[in-house]
């Protein structure tokens, strides 16, 4: 518990210093606002609007990625104990992966993966 206490003190000091420095600049610093200063600075790049449109294809591909990516989560526990599961586990996983495969075939043929 003792060492955690020290950690807490560290956090406290860090937060305190940050607050003090911030307070000093806010109260003492001169303020001259102009539009150029208010722009976000990004190494000389022209900053784009944050809410610019992304191609809708992007969302579809991203959604499909999440789906297929998540399904592989079942492969990890299976891989750890597949020797113990024997043929039952083998055929169970074969049927699982084949259904997933058919899903991929469907998506592919449907044209959801074509970018253009």
């Amino acid at each position, binding site marked *: 518990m003792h060492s955690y206490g020290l950690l807490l003190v560290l956090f406290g000091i860090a937060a305190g210093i940050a607050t003090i420095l911030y307070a000093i600049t806010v109260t003492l610093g001169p303020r001259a606002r102009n539009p150029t200063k208010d722009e976000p600075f990004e190494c000389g790049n022209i900053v784009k609007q944050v809410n610019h449109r992304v191609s*809708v294809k992007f*969302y579809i591909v991203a*959604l*499909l990625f*999440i*789906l297929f*990516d*998540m*399904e592989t*989560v*079942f492969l990890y*526990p299976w891989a750890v104990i597949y020797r113990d599961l024997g043929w039952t586990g083998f055929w169970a996983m074969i049927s699982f992966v084949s259904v997933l495969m058919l899903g991929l075939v469907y998506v592919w043929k449907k044209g959801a993966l074509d970018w253009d």
Partner: protein
Amino acid sequence: MSPAIPVENYLYLAIVLFSIGAAGVLIRRNAIVVFMCIELMLNAANLVLISFARHHADPAGHIYVLLVMAVAAAEVAVGLAIMIAMFRERKSIHVDDLRDMHG
């Protein structure tokens, strides 16, 4: 090695997370944020499952978490697809704009 954190603490954390999620669903107006709050509720449930799986020394609980995550991913896919359709239709996903039907 420090003594293990009791399972109750995880439970309380999960209940807090769940409550934040449920409150968010009721308060927030952006459909995506509402959906994120729902995901928070699901993850609170996952936290309960995983900590009690450890507490009961029952491996089944770990598998339940994986099942929930896979199901949640499928739900996300359908939900976001619906939101995209909605946004194309009326350029907004605010739940306050869902006013075509009433009575």
